[in-house]
């Protein structure tokens, strides 16, 4: 049974602490998170394949599928809105990314498919949902922009942003390290229900 209380995790997240998490649990994150969207996934995988060093250390890291709205001010970058984007677009790339990077937590929305669930089981990773569309709320937990890479080349939404976050959540564990996939389970049940209502 999923726990009701929220569990606070500090980054980098030790893989051992992921064992106690089950699909349906709620967590929050303290520390550093890295944004990776479509292009950044592709670029990172290319780096790994060519044995080039990434500009960030992703060992046991937390990544988020997100393309923020940022504005440069005198005091540095300011994030206006930064919720998750649809994770399923990264489905084809995620397994490879997980394998190379040794990340611990993925934050996104909308759920992910079989290949990611398999990789989560094999490499001990959890995939969490942040409420989609809640860009202003997400931005309120971002305390600082620590860095940004590939901005010129990929543009603002696709760049690799490094955020310092406090109590980032709520995050609902959607795929756990046993590979249980909540959104898939719910979709299968929904299809069964609908086919019993409409003949």
């Amino acid at each position, binding site marked *: 049974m999923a726990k009701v209380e929220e569990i606070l995790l500090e980054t980098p997240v030790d893989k051992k602490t992921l064992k106690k998490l089950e699909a349906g649990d709620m967590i929050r994150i303290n520390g550093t998170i890295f944004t990776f969207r479509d292009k950044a996934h592709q670029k990172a995988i290319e780096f790994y394949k060519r044995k080039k060093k990434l500009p960030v250390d992703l060992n046991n890291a937390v990544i988020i599928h997100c393309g923020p709205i940022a504005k440069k001010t005198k005091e540095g970058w300011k994030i206006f809105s930064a919720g998750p984007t649809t994770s399923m677009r990264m489905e084809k790339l995620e397994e490879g990314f997980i394998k190379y990077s040794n990340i611990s937590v993925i934050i996104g*929305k909308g759920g992910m498919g079989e290949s990611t669930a398999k990789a989560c089981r094999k490499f001990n990773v959890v995939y969490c949902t942040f409420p989609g*569309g809640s*860009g*202003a709320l997400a931005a309120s937990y971002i305390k600082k922009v620590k860095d940004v890479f590939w901005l010129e080349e990929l543009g603002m939404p696709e760049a690799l942003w490094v955020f310092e976050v406090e109590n980032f959540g709520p995050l609902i564990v959607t795929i756990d390290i046993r590979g249980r996939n909540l959104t898939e389970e719910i*979709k299968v049940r929904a299809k069964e229900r609908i086919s019993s209502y409409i003949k």
Partner: protein
Amino acid sequence: MKQTELEQIITELIKKTEMFLPDEVVSHIKKAIKKETKIGKTILQSILKNINLAKNTHRPICQDTGTLTFFIQMGSEFPLRDKLKKALLNAVEKATKEVPLRSNTVDPITNKNTGNNIGNYIPYIDLEITNGRDCEITLLAKGGGSENMSKLKMFNPTDSLDDIKKFVVNHIVEAAGKPCPPTIVGVGIGGTSDLALKIAKKALLRPLGERHSDKTVSKLEKEIIELANKSGIGPMGLGGKTTVLDVHIEIGHRHPASLPVGVVMQCWAHRYGKVKIYGDGRVEWPR
């Protein structure tokens, strides 16, 4: 009224639309919170928190500020008719910097982002010429996640309304958490292929809770709402009673050989707004 004033009004419309949700959308979300438990409730509560935060801190509700779609009804004698297009484009560019909006205008061949939300055919401008001297501009800001869940099917004219119902409900279930449910679903029945999708998009602009004036269509709307919510997909596809906030159907006359059906989904962050500019310069903000 000068062009710069017109520009200012449209900039204001974009800002308001991106930062404040229409009251009836918020009240539908509040009602849904009462029905949900556990995960569904937590998600909707966070969403409500986000709505209030965006409103109070003047930030865009979602980082995907969408493709800006303007539905315009302009009187043929509207005094600023020759300035309207220029004013719209300038306002989009200005709002992109000031709100700020994310630039969502990418060349599909070179993948280059124009950086100002202006490009070929974008912003989307739908112009209808009416009688008189007034102009009403409705803005719909629609994100990529929900837009990717659009669907068109060319039915056989002998197919039944039940077949259409099944198609729409199955699509809502298949889309699951991807379009950020609870969604508002627009359905266009009839017209041509492109019209079916266009009237589906226009149907989103009907206030939530309002049914189609035709009895048969209104019944079909209610049946789709009931089935979608019984599916259990729930907020963000993580389970619950609220998969859709509403379903709006619009109908168009079809060719005897065709029966196109278009489905367009909008996320819970249903950002739309209106401004009416009268021929004498008065400005009204109907919400």
